[in-house]
């Protein structure tokens, strides 16, 4: 057996590594589905805002001594609906408003954690997560989230497709566009919060944007884009975990490094190919 493969097998003997791999794969499914919708609807900034504002929910939970997950989910859903409402009502000012909520939510969380006696939550674990320390309970939670997302997306697929492709036309056909927008933003908020706990805020944003972007280049339908995004995302997670194990570096960061490297390689190759094709057409 060649060296690297042996290392990989060795790596998978550890329980925490098996959990990390499973967490990565489960997060990939959620991020592939929601990320594709976020990317084609150009809601990346909104997703970032929701993810950061979620820290306000973490702070609130610790300050009031409430259970963290339900409190964060509630807080993020509230913040996301506020952003959704603002982005629908004041289209031109949407990015500013989201930026304000983004920063305000985060500052709110940090202040509340400062005021909480005796406990000091690590901001770094919120930003980068701890994929190597995922409890089994969280894996079940993520599997449930994946199940819900798959069900909702397949049930609403035609409407989501029409809505994402051409909102004006959807409205003219009598579709409940506002409701769909809220559904989409709500799904994004839920996904982001559930997965932040596991892989951290920055990895969530990376997995929400890079795999769908890679998938969009080739996909012939939104469904295929989702599947391809899930595939890319799994590749990034597994590759990143292997590298992080091999070289003993932070796992979240090495997953993002693998994704970014692929991103730049692919866009670079595309640019070169386009230039070659253009010069070929000219001659």
């Amino acid at each position: 057996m060649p060296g690297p493969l042996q290392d990989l097998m060795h790596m998978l003997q550890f329980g925490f590594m098996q959990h990390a791999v499973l967490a990565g794969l489960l997060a990939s499914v959620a991020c592939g589905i929601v990320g594709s919708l976020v990317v084609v609807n150009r809601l990346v900034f909104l997703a970032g805002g929701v993810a950061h504002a979620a820290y306000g929910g973490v702070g609130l939970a610790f300050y009031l001594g409430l259970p963290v997950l339900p409190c964060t989910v509630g807080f993020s859903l509230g913040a996301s609906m506020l952003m959704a409402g603002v982005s629908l009502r004041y289209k031109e000012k949407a990015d500013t408003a989201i930026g304000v909520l983004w920063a305000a939510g985060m500052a709110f969380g940090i202040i509340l954690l400062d005021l909480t006696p005796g406990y000091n939550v690590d901001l770094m674990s919120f930003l980068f997560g701890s994929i190597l320390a995922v409890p089994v309970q969280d894996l079940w939670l993520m599997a449930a989230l994946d199940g819900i997302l798959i069900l909702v997306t397949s049930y609403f697929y035609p409407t989501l497709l029409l809505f994402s492709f051409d909102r004006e036309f959807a409205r003219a056909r009598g579709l409940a566009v506002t409701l769909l927008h809220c559904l989409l933003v709500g799904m994004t908020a839920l996904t982001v919060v559930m997965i932040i706990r596991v892989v951290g805020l920055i990895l969530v944003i990376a997995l929400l944007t890079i795999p769908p972007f890679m998938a969009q280049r080739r996909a012939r339908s939104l469904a295929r884009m989702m599947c391809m995004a899930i595939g890319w995302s799994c590749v990034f997670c597994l590759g990143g975990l292997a590298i992080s194990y091999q070289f003993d570096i932070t796992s979240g960061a090495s997953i993002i490094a693998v994704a970014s490297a692929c991103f730049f390689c692919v866009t670079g190759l595309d640019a070169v190919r386009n230039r070659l094709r253009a010069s070929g057409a000219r001659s």
Partner: protein
Amino acid sequence: MSEEILSISDLRFAYNGTPVLEDVSLTVNRGNYLAVLGPNGGGKTTLIKCILGLLTPQQGSVRVFGESPDRVRHRIGYVPQYATAQEAFPICVLDVVLMGAMNTASTLFTSTWRRTRANVEKARHALHMVGLDGHDQDNLRDLSGGQRQRVIVARALMGDPDLLLLDEPTANIDPQGKFCFYEFLGSLPGTITTIVVSHDLSITASPFTGIAIVNRSLRYAPGNTLNEELLAMLYGTHEPTCPMGTFISTVSGMFPAIADVQPPEMESDNASAGREGHR
């Protein structure tokens, strides 16, 4: 054959108290091909949205097929502005056209959009009507701007519309393609009534049966003509020394027959004229 498709009377619409449309009256009969021209911000899109029932005018009435617009919306084929803005969207041509078959009495939970064999047949036929045979499996992003716009028209045709409503359909098409596109609209079956909104004068080269200039008020002129008065409403009045003034007199000189004969409807400011011209 002069079935009334659209009738608007004394319509007034204001955004936050600022009037966008005032005293607008218009009648369109079956088979007409109406060109609606006007400057940006003149109220063209607002008019379209009132016809679709997406906006409710503060005053006046809009009747489509003799009913209120939101009840007959499924009989209107709507081609929205910037429909092709989603350049990189992963979707094939056939799927775009099939979207037009979406169940119209839809709420979020009951809307259906099934890929039945009948729908696919119909979508292929709609693509044939817009001259895109054999492109059904192509990726939308691989088509040219003009072809893409035709796909959107084919999608509107899926609902068997009696009225086709196009908002700036040529915004993304090169000048050459524009003429072809307007010609194509003129070649649609005579049973379909077409209303095209544009701020682009190249539409005047196509075989429309009536023209309406919208700039807060609406002025209608039947026939395939564009005269100096209408151009002045479109671009404002200019001194002859101003390049725009020269342009206006030159363009209206290109339609000499019209410049001589003023249609009687033009006497009143907001003509709601019935018309004879059928395609």
